[in-house]
């Protein structure tokens, strides 16, 4: 059963004590309506409808192959890049369907940035260049007068500035795994997206780096909407405001995180998060 937190500007139905973010009326940054996605003839996402709360962290959990990554890639039109990738349904951003024929997917991806499982730094490019590349590749820089200022601000927002400010000309690959992932986040931030999608951003990181990224997510929430796909349920519980549980391409349950991890309504959610699934 899907909780009634779909649609725009609607209140979370369930009041959760002590969870102020979940209690706030939820303005949606994205509204997903009857989304289906395929790889060739294989259906990977089936009839998902949900609202992604603005300036909230929304986590998507579920077993391997449940469609989490496919779903998140549908949110910025990345799925259609995959071979045989096809999408039906609507994803509304500011009331406009991002899949409407006149919409430019590149413009959507600039507004909805993405951070991947493995830090995708340009290895030979400098730290500065890595962040600046996000701006120059999207031709966004021409409107900016102060490239250095943008790079510095992005690195600060990604909580990396203090660690790299004296070695901006060193290659991105010289950084540790956790730093590289924050560098990717800085690059995503540099183009000033409204939404940041994170696909397993910490799965290749050690616990300390993971905690830094999680802390960073909480900071980012002030300015951005964050959607995170994670295998780590503890991580979803720690950082997110709302959590959706996916199984076999369907959204089984979507509710405030505290509710999902204490009193899930659907038995399949309960079985999955308590390890009885399988």
């Amino acid at each position, binding site marked *: 059963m899907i909780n009634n937190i779909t649609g725009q500007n609607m209140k979370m139905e369930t009041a959760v004590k002590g969870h102020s973010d979940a209690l706030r009326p939820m303005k949606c940054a994205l509204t997903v309506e009857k989304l289906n996605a395929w790889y060739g003839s294989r259906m990977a996402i089936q009839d998902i409808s949900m609202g992604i709360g603005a300036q909230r962290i929304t986590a998507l959990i579920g077993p391997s192959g449940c469609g989490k990554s496919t779903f998140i890639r549908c949110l910025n039109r990345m799925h259609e890049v995959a071979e045989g990738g096809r999408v039906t349904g609507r994803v509304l951003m500011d009331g406009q369907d991002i899949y409407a024929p006149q919409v430019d997917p590149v413009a959507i991806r600039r507004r909805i940035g993405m951070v991947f499982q493995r830090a995708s730094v340009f290895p030979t490019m400098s730290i500065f260049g890595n962040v600046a590349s996000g701006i120059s590749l999207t031709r966004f820089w021409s409107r900016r007068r102060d490239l250095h200022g943008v790079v510095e601000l992005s690195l600060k927002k990604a909580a990396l500035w203090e660690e790299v400010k004296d070695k901006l000309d060193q290659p991105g690959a010289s950084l540790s795994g956790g730093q590289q992932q924050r560098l990717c986040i800085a690059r995503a931030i540099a183009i000033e997206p409204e939404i940041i999608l994170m696909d397993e951003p910490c799965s290749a990181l050690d616990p300390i780096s993971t905690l830094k990224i999680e802390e960073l997510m909480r900071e980012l929430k002030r300015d951005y909407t964050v959607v995170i796909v994670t295998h780590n349920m503890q991580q979803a519980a720690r950082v997110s405001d709302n959590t959706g549980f996916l199984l076999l391409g369907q959204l089984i349950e979507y509710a405030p995180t505290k509710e999902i991890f*204490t009193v899930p309504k659907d038995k399949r959610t309960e079985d999955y998060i308590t390890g009885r699934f399988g």
Partner: protein
Amino acid sequence: MPRESYHRNLRELQDEVLVMGSMIEKALERSMLALKGRDLDLAKLVIADDQNVNKKRFEIEEKALDIMSCQAPMASDLRILLAVLFIVTDLERMGDHAAGNAKIALMIGNEPPLKPLIDLPRMNDKAIDMLHRSLNAFITNDAEAARVIVPEDDEIDNLYDQVFRELLTFMMEDPRTITRATRLIWVGHNLERTGDRVTNICERVVFMVTGKMEEMNISTY
């Protein structure tokens, strides 16, 4: 089941709560037998056994902590663990009440009886019965069974009222009975508190099953 050993540990922990519950039932039974039969040795045994109850409580807490720290329990598992921690606290206090009554049995010693003990054993029996059923509800995840028990605490409260009024009459008629009557009022008070703690257990069982915190017992005392 993918996390077999974890769930086995969780079930064992619940069984440990039942073991502790049966220790309390035994302590309550024995303390009343000691009071009725002026059995000072039995009273001493109840007092000594209270150490084992305390020990059992800490054992259960430690095991619960192990599961919490190593297994990251969630949802119903997390609620079970929370319920366990609260229930063992209530059981431990019930053990103290039973030991308290055993201590009163020692204080009374071989003084001549003020009156035959009728209502106090009834309160004791009722508390034991409620405790037994509340722990059954706990182990069978039966919120409804737990809910049914809560109003039965009124029976214990009413008996306590009755005992109190009766002993007050004794004291008013003959002030020389004040010491003996007061001791029996203490016994009644311990049993009244025992009943209240059973209702706490019932509230925890309801929380464990439904995830909702409800205050169900609005006690007179």
